[in-house]
């Protein structure tokens, strides 16, 4: 982004010097875009898996109808709650949003740590796809207008989309950049949609756990920052503190994974000869 600066001199020889300088994008914007993009991409992968399973098994008409109705409902939620949130006092909004993001982010990090250390099964899109297909095939009746396919596609898109809406609204309104958050979410959804439609059943190859780790770190960082802002804490470096939090939580995440991951010697001793 470029900014124009005008310099005026006294007297008749007024001179205008135009200086074009690169305006530094604040770390707050980078973290906002990263958090919204990754969160939306992850949720889109999960929603797309369900829609693909429904479409392949029960036909595309009802699956797409369910998807479109869910998207319209989600857009209506953004249209209703987005402008309303702008009227909430900023310190209250940031405290509430910060608390929500802190809880949400720690939940994501906890799951990512447990999955990385092998204590929890990784999110397997192939398994979810197969389970959904098996569930739908068991219901052999397939009328022209398929209510089951419609409801499953609607639920899948609406529930995953609701998390996207909450992420976009909370991050966007608190940062006073709702437009940027919505645009980023739109780009992520369209990109994953296009890639998903091309690779179809290979969504399991998306590094979802790594993406969730990234989202978790960004959400906890924003949560920490805004809880502090809501409680009138003055952060050193203002927005720059966000970058520090990202680094700090990334190191903590790595430490926790390393600490609870069973060592190779333990694993070998547990394997029968």
């Amino acid at each position, binding site marked *: 982004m470029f900014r124009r600066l005008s310099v005026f001199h006294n007297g008749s020889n007024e001179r205008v010097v135009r200086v074009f300088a690169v305006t530094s994008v604040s770390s707050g914007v980078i973290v906002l875009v990263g958090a919204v993009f990754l969160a939306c991409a992850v949720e889109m992968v999960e929603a797309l898996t369900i829609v693909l399973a429904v479409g392949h098994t029960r036909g595309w008409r009802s699956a797409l109808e369910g998807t479109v109705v869910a998207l319209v409902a989600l857009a209506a939620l953004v249209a209703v709650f987005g402008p309303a949130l702008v009227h909430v006092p900023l310190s209250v909004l940031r405290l509430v949003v910060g608390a929500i993001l802190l809880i949400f982010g720690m939940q994501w990090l906890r799951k990512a740590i*447990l999955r990385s250390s092998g204590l*929890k099964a990784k999110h397997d899109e192939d398994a979810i796809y197969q389970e959904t297909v098996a569930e739908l095939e068991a219901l052999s009746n397939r009328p022209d207008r398929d209510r089951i396919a419609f409801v499953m596609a609607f639920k899948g898109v609406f529930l995953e989309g609701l998390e996207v809406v909450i992420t976009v609204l909370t991050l966007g309104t608190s940062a006073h950049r709702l437009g940027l958050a919505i645009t980023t979410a739109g780009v992520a959804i369209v990109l994953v949609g296009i890639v998903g439609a091309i690779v179809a059943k290979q969504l399991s190859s998306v590094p979802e756990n790594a993406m969730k780790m990234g989202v978790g770190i960004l959400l906890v960082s924003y949560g920490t920052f805004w809880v502090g802002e809501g409680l009138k804490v003055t952060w050193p470096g203002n927005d720059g503190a966000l970058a520090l939090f990202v680094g700090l939580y990334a190191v903590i995440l790595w430490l926790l994974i390393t600490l609870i991951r069973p060592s190779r010697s333990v694993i070998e001793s547990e394997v029968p000869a």
Partner: protein
Amino acid sequence: MNQKQSPLIVRLLKGFGMFWWDFLVGDTPELFAAVLVIIGAVALSRIVLQENALAIVLLPLLAIIALALSVYRAQRAARK
């Protein structure tokens, strides 16, 4: 009362409440409680004691401790 007999508005409110309960509390009530403690501790240090530096340290530190304890709890549960 059977849920089918409840008025639509009651079902919607119940669903809305359940969604937020699952979303914020779910199977990690310790994280929900920890965030309330964090807010209380930071409010005490910043607003009551007027200690900005203490609040700066306390906020991320308590979040890290809460996360570590929650992971430790899950680890113990997984090994039982």
